[in-house]
């Protein structure tokens, strides 16, 4: 451990890699035409399915069923695009508008609460001495890879007894439990890089652990907190299985469950599934593009989740 009080941000365990050791050009193998062609082809292949669905979401049912989405480029002047699908998906029987509110109601607490709980635990694991600490932490490390499938049947029964099936807290608590070991792992690894001297001096100044946690450690851990927050946000928003099992179809269903209805119930409604699909994607894509940097750091930090 270094005793110098470096800024914590510079000491991320995961983010920036070592600087290149020397100043000469590390990469004499610059991209040739072959590299550029291969990458262009890959990028186009990656985007074509997305583009196709995006265009389809603006086409009428007749158009979708009678011709491929790429035909819109043949007659660019008479594209005949419509916002109908979005209108129907949001307001009609599909209830995607309601589902989006539900998704937010599930995702926000299921993201913030585990962070708070995990941050307290990570603080104790990093800055407090107590018997059994190492054993308990190793338990968490080993639980990282346990598939959360183990929980479904027992918890389903437990919820049934408590009458909790279909409620928001039922999924919050499940996501809190499933995300907890990864959250503690990421946050503890990050806190271990914070300068111990600052925490020591706070103690000497008479600050309690509670104050040190909220006033020093939590603000200093923002990069790691943000990393996990994005990770968990995307995970919960995009989750289908937990929502299907503990909430199921109905009043409180999130967008992922809503979209499965569009696919099955309204068999004729291809055009609605695309609009509905984009409605489910819009929030995570915005979060992702805006906070990509933190997300990458989160992935590099605690890549393994069971």
């Amino acid at each position: 451990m270094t005793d110098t009080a470096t800024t914590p941000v510079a000491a991320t365990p995961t983010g920036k890699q070592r600087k290149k050791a020397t100043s000469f050009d590390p990469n004499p193998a610059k991209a040739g035409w072959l590299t550029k062609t291969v990458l262009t082809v890959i990028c186009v292949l990656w985007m074509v399915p997305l583009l196709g669905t995006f265009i389809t979401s603006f086409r009428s049912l007749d158009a979708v069923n009678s011709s491929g989405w790429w035909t819109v480029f043949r007659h660019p002047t008479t594209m005949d695009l419509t916002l109908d699908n979005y209108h129907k998906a949001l307001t009609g029987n599909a209830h995607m508008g309601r589902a989006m509110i539900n998704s937010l109601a599930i995702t926000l607490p299921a993201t913030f609460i585990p962070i708070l709980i995990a941050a307290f635990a990570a603080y104790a694991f990093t800055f407090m001495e107590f018997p059994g600490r190492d054993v308990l932490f190793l338990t968490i490390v080993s639980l990282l890879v346990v598939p959360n499938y183990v929980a479904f049947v027992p918890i389903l029964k437990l919820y049934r007894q408590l009458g909790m099936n279909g409620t928001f807290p039922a999924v919050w608590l499940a996501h809190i439990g499933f995300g907890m070991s990864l959250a503690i792992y990421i946050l503890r690894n990050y806190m271990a890089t914070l300068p111990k001297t600052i925490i020591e001096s706070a103690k000497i100044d008479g600050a309690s652990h509670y104050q040190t946690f909220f006033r020093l450690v939590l603000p200093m851990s923002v990069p790691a907190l943000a990393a996990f927050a994005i990770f968990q946000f995307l995970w919960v928003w995009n989750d289908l299985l937990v929502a299907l099992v503990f909430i199921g179809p109905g009043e409180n269903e999130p967008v992922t469950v809503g979209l499965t209805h569009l696919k099955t119930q309204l068999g004729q409604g291809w055009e609605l599934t695309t609009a509905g699909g984009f409605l489910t994607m819009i929030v995570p894509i915005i979060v992702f593009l805006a906070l990509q940097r933190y997300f990458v750091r989160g992935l590099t930090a605690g890549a393994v989740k069971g």
Partner: protein
Amino acid sequence: MLVKSSSTLITVLVGIGAALLLFWILNKLAELLPGRWEHRVKPYLYILPAFASITVYLIYPTILTVNNSFKDNLSRNYVGFRNYTTLFHSQEFRETLFNTLLWVIIVPSVAVVLGLAVAVLTDRLSPGAEKFSKTVLFLPMAISMIGAATIWRFVYAAEPKGQPQIGILNAFIGIFNWGPIAWLQKSTFHLNSLLLMVILLWAQIGFSMVLLSAAVKGVPADTLEAARIDGANERQIFFRVTVPQIKGTLITVLITVTIGTMKVFDIVYVNTNGDFNTNVLGNLFYNNISTFLNYGAASAIVVILMIAVIPIMWYQVRHFRAEEAGAS
């Protein structure tokens, strides 16, 4: 809608507020204790909510699941190993197991190889082009599997012969007077499973690319330069200098994608629901708890999955200990 929104907002605030209140109370409780005890008990109170949630949602269910796997379909009476023997005797389960094995072998290895290739290639681009192509490849990570399934429907869709094809793959082979092929129903050589794997790879390549790209950039330039001065060609440098130095990340990516692939569910569920010999353990598990209401079989499937992750768990703990020993 307004009522719904505001009641939802209140639920959210109450939930988050309750979590904050919990810690405030726990801390107050600790402070009520006499001096020495306060310091002894406080760490345990700080980790209590975390451990409570892990215990309720992972540890206790694990024990119960192992137990249930030896009970009948509604977990009433013990039936010994019957759930396991029934599973392994059924043709359907063996096919499911084999399919899952295919997923677990193919997806992680392709994800690592392709991810590494893209990471190395993008590293050679100008910074702007690198950032752009990485965002393009990484973007599908933000999309749910059910969203991805919606997207890929327009790739694999098949219309009867003679009608205009709306799936791009059939439209493409139609140019050569071939097809149409109902892709997701073709189980010859597991073609449909492979095509479903493409969807997962489409979503996952970005993940392995980002991790491996960070590792490739972290390889010290002087080791590369030294190899170059010694007359090594680019291929030798890649396999003998770069790859050994990023071995740790390669293993991490392989493990992470493997665990994710073992549990694959959404893609199969929404595309084929396991029909046409595409079933995997995750979907069979879900069918058992939702459609067949056979908790015994479902529990046995989870236990099989858990046994499969034990080696990874063991590696993980060993790796963590080695890292901690190295750090301090």
